[in-house]
């Protein structure tokens, strides 16, 4: 029974590290290869040993697809390709390919060199891994091999984020990665064809949330920053180099312009240029407004946002600084935080500990830092909310939906909603659990003109509304199927017709006359012998260039020659079957449903 199997190794009822195995029509694809940044040991990577118990990963997996550059979706990639040993193709969009190594490199430096972790990938490994990447364009159908094809669609989550359709023959799966159904200041909304896949694998981070209006969130953010600056404070905004930072930059830039504010805004040195470079390079991935106005004014060339120098942190007066990294665990953002944390006029949007309310932090060297600054948490993440997810499901029209990248309880809610409102089966496997969906792929079969004509000659005109039976010999060659008449099959394959006759001697003790007895036996068998006894499907097959097809009589029930059967007093279930040549000959039925 053909089926699609999906096993999350990560992102199954969690938001840790995305890694989903999909098996579709005999092809195996890994969707995302993320890292869990909460762990410092082996647990940070998915357990790849579950992909296959025997054999090499490269032989088992047909390809790996990366949806976007966030480390919870691509962080384990160099480990997987250079240390675990996957040597096959990796697909991602062009912007993801360009930005991915920057984030991987940043994380490597923190993990290996600052935390002193061993068994981590090197810079060279990141480069070697990126060399295995095949970059794809939006809406470009990429043939991974003769059967497997993939196609990328715009996901809107970050620059270069994509949804992927994976297709083998008539079966398909769509994987959304992370996506956003509402456009923002620099990216557009996710969009995909009504491709009606067998399965839609969608993220569900905000499965139960209907998010407040973006405008409110932005107003709140601007108000808080403005207030802090007005009272002479300094605002630290820890961000990741690329991604949501650009959205906030555009927001502040526009606000500063409108309000004619003079307080300087800085962005970590080097990163502005880098970010600008990528946004210019991939301008087609931004939203319509930015693309349209790009010629007159590049939105990423900011008037108010300047490159930051570490000496600026000591300058008196208000300022706003975007500094990396976003979690305040190292680097420039941490240095600035140390300087500014003691002043209650200042404000920061900061990492885990401070966020969780701790006001006294023990820093390196047993120094205790008292946090007097105002701390705010504001979410500008670009995930679809419940409404957006429902909208996408409606847009794609899948046969089934599978939820990943979300919390179990929230998924449960959304699952019910999808099943009730959209009448679509919904699944939410935990990590390590396999969801199996039976599929019924339609296999196209070419029918020879001769066979069709013969059927027509019998007065059976095609009727689009009625499926009907057509008898012939099915020939499989180079993965193509053709139905031809038995005679034509023999002719094409250059085979001689053989007839096998199976006989057995039965001693009958009957006092009646011989002819009378024979007639009684014939009547008895005619009445009781099963239909298949007469129809007995032949075994035919094809091997290499020399084909062997069954010689099958076009039978209605009891169209075999009973006279001969009676005469020989033997069993002749299958006149004209070619001799079988061993177990390699595959069976093929010569009957199929043919839509009129």
């Amino acid at each position, binding site marked *: 029974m053909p089926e699609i199997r999906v*096993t999350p190794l990560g992102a199954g009822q*969690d*938001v*840790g590290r995305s890694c989903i195995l999909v098996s579709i029509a*005999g092809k195996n694809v890994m969707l995302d290869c993320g890292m869990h940044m*909460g*762990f*410092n040991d082996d*647990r940070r990577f998915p357990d790849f040993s*579950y992909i296959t*118990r*025997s*054999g*090499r990963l*490269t*032989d088992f997996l047909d390809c790996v697809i990366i949806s976007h550059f*966030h480390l*919870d979706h691509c962080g384990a990639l160099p480990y997987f390709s250079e240390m675990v040993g996957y040597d096959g*193709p990796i697909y991602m969009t062009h912007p993801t390919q360009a930005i991915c*190594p920057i984030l991987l490199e940043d994380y490597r*430096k923190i993990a290996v*060199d*600052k*935390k002193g972790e061993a068994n981590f990938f090197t*810079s060279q490994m990141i*480069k070697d891994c990126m*060399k295995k990447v095949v970059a794809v364009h939006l809406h470009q159908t990429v043939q991974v*091999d003769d059967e497997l094809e993939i196609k990328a669609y715009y996901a809107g989550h970050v620059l270069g984020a994509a949804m992927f359709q994976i297709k083998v023959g008539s079966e398909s799966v769509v994987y959304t990665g*992370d996506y956003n159904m509402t456009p923002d200041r620099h990216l557009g909304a996710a969009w995909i064809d009504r491709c009606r896949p067998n399965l839609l694998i969608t993220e569900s*981070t905000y499965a139960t949330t209907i998010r407040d209006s973006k405008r409110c969130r932005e107003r709140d953010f601007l108000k808080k920053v403005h207030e802090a600056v007005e009272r002479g404070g300094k605002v630290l905004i820890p961000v*990741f180099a690329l991604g*949501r930072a650009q959205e906030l930059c555009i927001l502040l830039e526009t606000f500063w312009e409108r309000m004619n504010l003079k307080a300087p805004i800085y962005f970590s040195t*080097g990163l502005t*240029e880098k970010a600008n*470079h990528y946004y210019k390079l991939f301008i087609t991935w931004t939203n319509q407004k930015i693309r349209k106005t790009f010629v007159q004014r590049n939105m990423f060339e900011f008037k108010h946002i300047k490159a930051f120098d570490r000496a600026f942190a000591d300058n008196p007066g208000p300022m706003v600084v975007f500094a990396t990294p976003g979690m305040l*665990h190292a*680097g420039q953002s941490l*240095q600035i935080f140390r*300087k500014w944390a003691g002043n209650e006029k200042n404000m920061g949007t900061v990492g*885990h*500990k401070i*966020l*969780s309310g701790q006001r006294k932090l023990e*820093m*390196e060297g047993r120094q205790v830092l008292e946090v007097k600054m105002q701390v705010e*948490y504001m*979410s500008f*993440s670009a995930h679809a909310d419940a409404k957006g997810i429902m909208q996408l499901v409606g847009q794609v029209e899948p046969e089934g939906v599978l939820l990943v990248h979300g*919390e*179990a309880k929230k998924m449960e809610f959304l699952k019910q909603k999808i099943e009730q409102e959209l009448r679509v089966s919904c699944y939410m496997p*935990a*990590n*390590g*659990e*396999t969801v199996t969906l039976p599929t019924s792929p339609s296999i196209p079969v070419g029918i020879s003109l001769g066979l069709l004509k013969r059927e027509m000659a019998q007065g059976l005109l095609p009727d689009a509304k009625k499926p009907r039976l057509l008898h012939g010999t099915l020939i499989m060659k180079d*993965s193509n199927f053709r139905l031809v008449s038995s005679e034509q099959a023999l002719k094409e394959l250059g085979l001689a017709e053989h007839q096998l006759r199976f006989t057995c001697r039965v001693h009958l003790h009957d006092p009646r006359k011989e002819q009378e007895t024979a007639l009684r036996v014939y009547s008895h068998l005619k009445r009781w012998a099963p239909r298949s006894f007469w129809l007995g499907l032949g075994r035919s097959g*094809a091997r*290499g*260039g020399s084909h062997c097809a069954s010689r099958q009589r076009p039978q209605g029930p009891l169209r075999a020659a009973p006279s001969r059967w009676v005469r020989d007093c033997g069993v002749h279930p299958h006149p004209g079957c070619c001799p079988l040549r061993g177990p*390699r000959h595959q069976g093929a039925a010569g009957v199929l449903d043919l839509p009129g």
Partner: protein
Amino acid sequence: MDPECSQLLPALCAVLADPRQPMADDTCLEKLLDWFKTITEAGSSLLLLQENPCLVELLCHVLKPQDLSSRVLSFSLRLTGVFAAQEDCFQYLQQGELLPRLFGEAGPLGGAAWTAPTVRSGWIQGLRSLAQHPSALHFLADCGAVDTIFSLQGDSSLFVASAAGQLLVHILSLSMRGPAEGPPGLQADDWPACAQKIVGHIEESLRSTAAPQITQALNVLTTTFGHCHDPWTQVLWVQLHPLVAALLEKDPVPAAHSLVDLLLSVARSPGLSSSSCGLWETLAQTLSHLSPTQAGLLALGILKLQDCPQALRAQAFAVLLQPLACVLKATAQGPGPSGLLDSTSADSVTADILLPSKAACVGLLCRTLAHLELLLPLPQRPCPWPQAPLLGAAVTLLQLCGGSGSPASDEGRQLCTLLLGCVRVQRAALDFLGTLSQETGPPELVTQVFAVLLEYLRSPDSSPTVLKKAFQATFRWLLSSPRTPGCSDLDSHALLFLRELLPVLQKRLCSPCWEVRDSGLEFLTQMTRRWGGQAGFRHALLASEVPRLTEQLLRDPESYVRASAVTAMGQLSSQGLCVPPASPEHPGGQQSLLGELLHILSTDSEGFPRRAVMQVFTQWLRDSHADVVGDTEQFVAGVLQVAGQDLDWEVRAQGLELALVFLEQTLGPPRSHCPYAVTPPVAAPASPLTQALQPLCRVRLFEFAFRALFDCDRPVAQKSCDLLLLLRAKMASSSSLQEPRSSPDVASVEAALQRWRAGDQAQPLGDLEPEVVLAVLRSMDLEGLRGALAESSDHVEKSPQSLLQDMLATVGILGENEADCY
């Protein structure tokens, strides 16, 4: 447990027991468990529970019917297992009936929580932890856990199913370890009831007609023979062997992969004498029963075995070679043996798998090539090794994939159609071809090897990954080309090849794909490092456009390529190979390269090229490169000044590496620990240390090192600390050691360093006198600093106290801060 943590624990347990309080993230419970494991490994669990009654209260609390998070329930099960691993603590928990309530029918096992895989996983892991002593075995038997574990082997979660299998092996092994009075007898009938039950279950599964059950049984046995090597395992194998062998009589053989794993695990087990158990016969039988796609892994496993009958090895090798023999047979230009396997033994079944379907053909060939690649470097590889036919097969495959093969037979043509443009086979064949370079081959075949490699390097259809592998294979074959033993020079054939290769490399350096340009540069660097001193190579290279193109790639838009170009140019320059033609635009080529690299160091926006420049400069200084020797002090001073300003800490760290080389060259290397080490002659400082330090002061090495000592990036500070400690060791050994003295200069430097330490590094130190440096060095607590720096930068955050505080601090605020993935 320290008192601070003890104080925080009751509040945390209360939070965990409260179903209204969701946990911040799933990592904190894992980390909490890690911490408890550390504590219980170091001390008494019983004491821990007695001193912290809140822990038992938590375990009791999770049993109450409530809407508790499955994660907390799973955590509690695992935690209980960690505590109960110690027998006295196990008894303590048993007294309170806590264990049967948690792990028995009355616990989560019978409730709605059991539907969550994380709870089932916690249940198994809890039992895995507690099953450490005989009392645990009785408990498992009494609460019927073993039957539940049997059923969990078929769990919908791969993780749970796998853990269940491993737990069974663990319980079997534990029960066979026996009580204190000695292990059970070797007769299976004498085995403990628990072991008999497990073995009975395995037997039943092996007799089953359901493939999943057979797979489970085989997997449990594989783990058993892989981990347990006691005499009882031999008894077990003798008992189960007929059932395993009976699987081979089924068509198709069920759970073939698991069967292969088991047989190899048994064959590798030192506890089993293979000959007496009929193992070799079973292996031979399995080899002949399995299809070529399934048998390859078994064949490789057999060939890796240390002692194995020759006939079986020959059979296994034949299985491994069959697909390639078929390829050779199908593509042979004329009749006659291919040399790999005689034609009679080339199994037609393999041909049947190779030819009808592309997927099967590609899969089988890739697996075969990978297996042979793994086998080749092993000492136990088959002898004689059919190097020539294998080379022929690899070349043929590459030709078929590349479209240059012209087989005469129908089968050959069909193979050609299947493989044409197949990147997977190309990659596998190039890797294999590269590995084959460890051995030599007949000259005509080696010529063919170079020809096919050149064909791939030239082909516009070669993908970047294929090209990279082609470059790698080419380098390996060039390395293996010298005919004179001990001579590393390229022979005349290789040089002829090189003349054809360089124009191709030239073209590849202009490729629109950065991956190709980069692979080309890496290849060039490798070649130059190896043969840069050889006249033939130098002549060919200088006659080509390659050095000029490499120089142009210093300005490539892709930073990876710029970095590789820097490394390549550094290497070319070291070998005197990048002298540009004398022209008005390039007055003094070498000088212009130094300037260009300095320009990259100070202006390139990406870290990779700047890091590469620092590595080149360090190497140049080490090798006394002509440019550097001219005015070393000026060179070092200039580089350190630029590197000190760099935002990439790896560039600053590399600057310290350069400083260390300069310091060693000035003061002499550190005393070698190896008495046999050859120390190159260096100018030992005849003059007093202060005089020797003068050049270091002139290049402002100390300002650079002191600044790095307080660098916010730990590795830089660590490296600087090591450098200064080395210098201080030299001071101590120096005869010119002077008494410490204090002066206004020293005080001002020390005050400046204090400010630097506080983060204000704006003020420079100015010109330092050696005496001042020495005095400052003496007064610094460098050892203390090194100790502080040895701790990772997140050591505070990683502390258990910090973890508990974090978990407590998230209470009540989670609703406000929605999960936010950037």
